[in-house]
């Protein structure tokens, strides 16, 4: 039966259409059919910002006859300088994904059943607005929760503003955790809650503690460009890379040395190296005496004696202890310590392990003074946006905002998506009534996805803004599809490895393919429909207007310039150092025109030595003893030992005993399916596990010797079972697997999605989820034990 949009409109609404298709079943991809709305024309290359991951690369999209036919890097964009990563190229398949959601949908079946009926945007707005009005009438606006994922810039400001004027403290950041740099370590040592820049381009020696520098950094192209430079970009200098990890990853393969340790044991190795550096007196004494706190023993204002990092590490982390725990020979430990301290500038990079393990890695950088120096850890300045006008909160909003957060987080500093799910189930402090899901897929990208699906069942109205039918959208009551990144306006503030702030501008390259709507525009419409102070807080017509207002601040900052060639960069910097600012634009109109033509704005200067920006700890120094954490804690608990604020090793509670579950489980990420968001893009599926020629499935890597002992052959299907569940995956013998560790890639196993992702492979996150970390409330990495058997 042929059915087009005109027919649908004639029938006067979604209900009719659903019935016409029989049985009320609606496949979301059938409506509306593809239509070419775009004007024919000659070839154009339009600059915009890639939206396939968090990287923020500038791209040029080749558009012919209204079709986007190719994506190339924007040579002017300083993040990627004309290059790309596989995900960026597959952005075309994200745009033309045949399984995109094409119109707002309302659930008609049970949750998770996937039966939807198309509705109009007016109807969708009405439904959301009525339930929000209802919340405010009952005086419980704090029952609105927004779970937000990987997005930044003004869209984030809009969400905060909306929640503030509405009266809810509940914006919960649920980004894909293990993809991010070790931000907790940065908070504990430098008091900073944003991402650091690692200047790998200018480092001499990189000691990576399980960090997926080459497969899953937050901004892959930038990191890979930096890697190329680190290796061979400087005449006569070749950077040395050592990878400490429980699996021979791509980073391990490319590294000069691979040091295998059990999952989660990287932290104690860092402390062992710190021990050797202290013992041999190889640390940067000047930096330590001038800019750090807590290295030596100290006396508090109350007269209490406190243990210093130096004494603590010297007494606790003897090489024999560390060597026994990690299996790394003592001589190798000593060599790594000497190499790290003598090859300056050296950089230690960790992953989002337990916070105090991250802190141990950060302490290595602190000991060598590699903070706020070229080739070290840098803290980028933020983009000088013009702030949005102050808003008035009405009485309901004030009452709502002063309520406790549902995840019991403290302000915006610490988000606890896990506690959100747990508290939703337990109803303490309260149960949310409306949940917005924006750019996050909690039912897939968190350990223990079952917890989130149970939590979502408890919430009466779940609204998803996903353009794709992802695992969480399938559990939602309303789906209000956003434009995909290539169809919308957005700002993208990022920074470079060398700390330069960069503002990319995302502009639509083609007209929207379907009846989707930018979530920013929807949010503005929603504010208007709610009326009162909320409406007054959002006087703009669309998101682009918000963006243009905020960009005035960038124009007026009298710093930086729109993107240019590398030569222009040097020139701008030279002038700026001399106190001049000679941008390529004279007025705001020119500025905004150039922004769109070149792809964005940047400020190619890093201001060294601004201590207030770099150290935001109570002592305004690099803290080996985290006073920031001590302050945050003191209200809730009594006397604590000194060691709980020093970098220390926390033995994990392992899930399952060693006899029954003989293997550690290591979940790893690949370049193509890093966050599991791009699984419906066949180009990426076709190269998911190139080191074993695995594609379109999930496999488990087993050490050949171990496999032989268990009579498992290469290619057998096996069950991998933990206390929480089991998955059936293909066994692959991999020499880069440790004898007692099995490795499963993350990214597959979607319960919902498109034709190329649904039902393909398994999600290893189903196996993990015990052993929550006390600070983040999030499951720790590498503590799950599993057994493997044929099946």
């Amino acid at each position: 039966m042929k059915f087009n949009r005109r027919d649908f409109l004639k029938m006067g609404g979604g209900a009719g259409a659903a019935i016409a298709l029989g049985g009320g079943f609606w496949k979301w991809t059938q409506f509306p059919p593809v239509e070419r709305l775009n004007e024919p024309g000659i070839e154009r290359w339009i600059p915009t910002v890639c939206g396939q991951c968090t990287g923020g690369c500038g791209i040029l999209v080749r558009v012919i006859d209204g079709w986007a036919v190719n994506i190339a890097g924007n040579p002017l964009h300083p993040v990627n300088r004309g290059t790309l990563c596989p995900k960026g190229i597959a952005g075309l398949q994200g745009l033309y994904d045949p399984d995109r959601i094409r119109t707002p949908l309302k659930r008609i079946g049970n949750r998770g059943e996937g039966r939807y009926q198309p509705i109009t945007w007016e109807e969708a707005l009405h439904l959301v607005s009525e339930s929000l009005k209802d919340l405010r009438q009952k005086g419980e606006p704090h029952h609105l929760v927004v779970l937000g994922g990987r997005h930044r810039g003004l869209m984030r400001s809009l969400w905060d503003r909306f929640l503030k004027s509405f009266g809810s403290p509940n914006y919960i950041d649920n980004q894909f955790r293990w993809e991010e740099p070790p931000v907790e370590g940065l908070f504990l040592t430098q008091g900073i809650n944003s991402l650091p820049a690692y200047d790998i381009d200018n480092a001499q020696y990189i000691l990576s503690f399980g960090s997926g520098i080459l497969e899953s950094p937050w901004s892959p192209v930038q990191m890979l460009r930096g890697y190329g430079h680190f290796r061979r970009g400087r005449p006569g200098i070749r950077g040395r890379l050592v990878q400490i990890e429980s699996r021979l990853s791509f980073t391990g393969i490319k590294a000069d040395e691979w040091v295998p340790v059990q999952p989660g044991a990287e932290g104690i190795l860092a402390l062992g190296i710190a021990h050797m550096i202290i013992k041999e007196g190889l640390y940067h004494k000047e930096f330590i005496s001038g800019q750090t706190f807590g290295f030596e023993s100290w006396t508090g204002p109350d007269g209490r004696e406190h243990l210093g990092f130096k004494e603590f590490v010297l007494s606790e982390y003897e090489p024999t202890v560390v060597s026994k725990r990690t299996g790394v020979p003592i001589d190798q430990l000593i060599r790594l310590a000497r190499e790290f301290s003598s090859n300056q500038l050296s950089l230690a990079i960790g992953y989002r392990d337990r916070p105090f393990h991250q802190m141990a890695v950060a302490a290595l950088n602190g000991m060598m003074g590699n903070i706020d120096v070229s080739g070290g850890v840098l803290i980028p300045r933020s983009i000088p946006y013009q702030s949005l006008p102050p808003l008035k909160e009405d009485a309901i909003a004030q009452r709502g905002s002063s309520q406790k957060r549902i995840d019991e987080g403290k302000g915006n500093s610490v988000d606890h998506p896990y506690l959100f799910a747990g508290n939703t189930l337990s109803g303490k402090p309260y149960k949310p009534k409306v949940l917005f899901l924006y750019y996050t897929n909690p039912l897939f990208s968190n350990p223990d996805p079952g917890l989130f699906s149970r939590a979502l069942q408890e919430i009466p109205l779940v609204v998803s803004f996903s353009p794709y039918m992802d695992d969480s959208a399938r559990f939602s009551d309303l789906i209000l599809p956003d434009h995909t990144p290539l169809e919308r306006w957005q700002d993208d503030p990022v920074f470079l490895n060398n700390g330069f702030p960069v503002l990319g501008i995302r502009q639509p390259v083609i007209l929207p393919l379907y009846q989707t709507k930018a979530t920013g525009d929807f949010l503005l419409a929603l504010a208007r429909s709610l009326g009162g102070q909320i409406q007054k807080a959002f006087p703009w017509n669309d998101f682009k207007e918000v963006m243009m207002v905020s960009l005035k601040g960038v124009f007026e900052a009298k710093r930086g310039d729109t993107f240019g060639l590398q030569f222009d960069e040097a020139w701008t910097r030279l002038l700026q150092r001399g106190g001049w600012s000679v941008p390529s634009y004279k007025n705001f109109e020119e500025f905004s025109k150039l922004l769109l033509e070149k792809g964005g704005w940047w400020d190619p200067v890093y201001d060294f030595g601004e201590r207030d920006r770099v150290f935001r700890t109570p002592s305004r120094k690099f803290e080996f003893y985290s006073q920031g954490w001590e302050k945050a804690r003191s209200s809730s608990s009594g006397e604590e030992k000194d060691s709980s604020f020093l970098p220390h090793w926390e033995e994990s509670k392992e899930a399952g005993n060693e006899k029954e579950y003989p293997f550690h489980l290591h979940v790893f990420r690949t370049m193509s399916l890093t966050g599991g968001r791009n699984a419906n893009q066949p180009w990426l599926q076709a190269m998911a596990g190139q080191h074993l020629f695995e594609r379109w499935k999930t496999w488990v890597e087993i050490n050949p010797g171990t496999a032989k002992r268990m009579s498992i052959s290469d290619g057998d299907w096996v069950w991998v079972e933990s206390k929480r569940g089991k998955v059936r995956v293909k066994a692959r013998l991999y020499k880069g697997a440790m004898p007692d560790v099995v490795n499963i890639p993350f990214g597959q196993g979607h319960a919902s999605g498109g034709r190329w992702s649904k039902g393909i492979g398994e999600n290893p996150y189903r196996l993990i989820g015990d052993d929550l970390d006390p600070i983040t409330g999030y499951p720790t990495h590498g503590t799950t034990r599993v057994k493997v058997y044929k099946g």
Partner: protein
Amino acid sequence: MHKWGMVIDLDRCSGCQTCMAACHAENNIAIIGPEESAMGRTIHWIELLPFIEGEYPHIKARLLPRPCMHCEHPACIKVCPVGATYANEEGIVGIVYSRCIGCRYCTTACPYTVRSFNWYKPQWPKEMQGSLNRDVSIRGKGVVEKCSFCHHRLLKAREKAKVEKRELLSEDYIPACVQACPSNAMYFGDLNDPFSTVSILSRERRAFKLLEDLGTEPKVIYLSEGM
């Protein structure tokens, strides 16, 4: 006369596989699904090949991006019974798809296994069809295909140079994989020009070619890892 060649610096290469994705997008390479892939029927004009040697924990692993070598003495041309495979005067080895009879002698003869056979009629969902690259023809079922050094880009660059009434410069032409490579591990240019980047790099101490002893004389040159 140009002699086009490529240099891949393995010390810069990070194994990210951008070259593979860029090639798929540029050359309209067919989507091969899960069942077909499991039978080894995937198509990659450039592929990242792993070499993993030794036993745990003493392992030496290497990752090697492998496009067509565009050999000076290609084994594939000699075995083709219908003359479908040829080398042009600039040294690029090409295929006339309409002549190919699908005998696959060439896929067997190529020592670098760069050639793929189309087991299926390539198909794209109708939503995607308009986003195919209009500069590259789609190969039908039953023909062999391989890397062309993005020859269509050369044709375009040459046309452009002609319109602008100037000689073709080697900067005018660059394959998609080289353009996209994030760690700048790939270089492309004229091997006949002794001062081109590729020529200079190909004379470096680290330079080597794959299976050099076969006498195929590849025009893809690798630079080894390490100092």
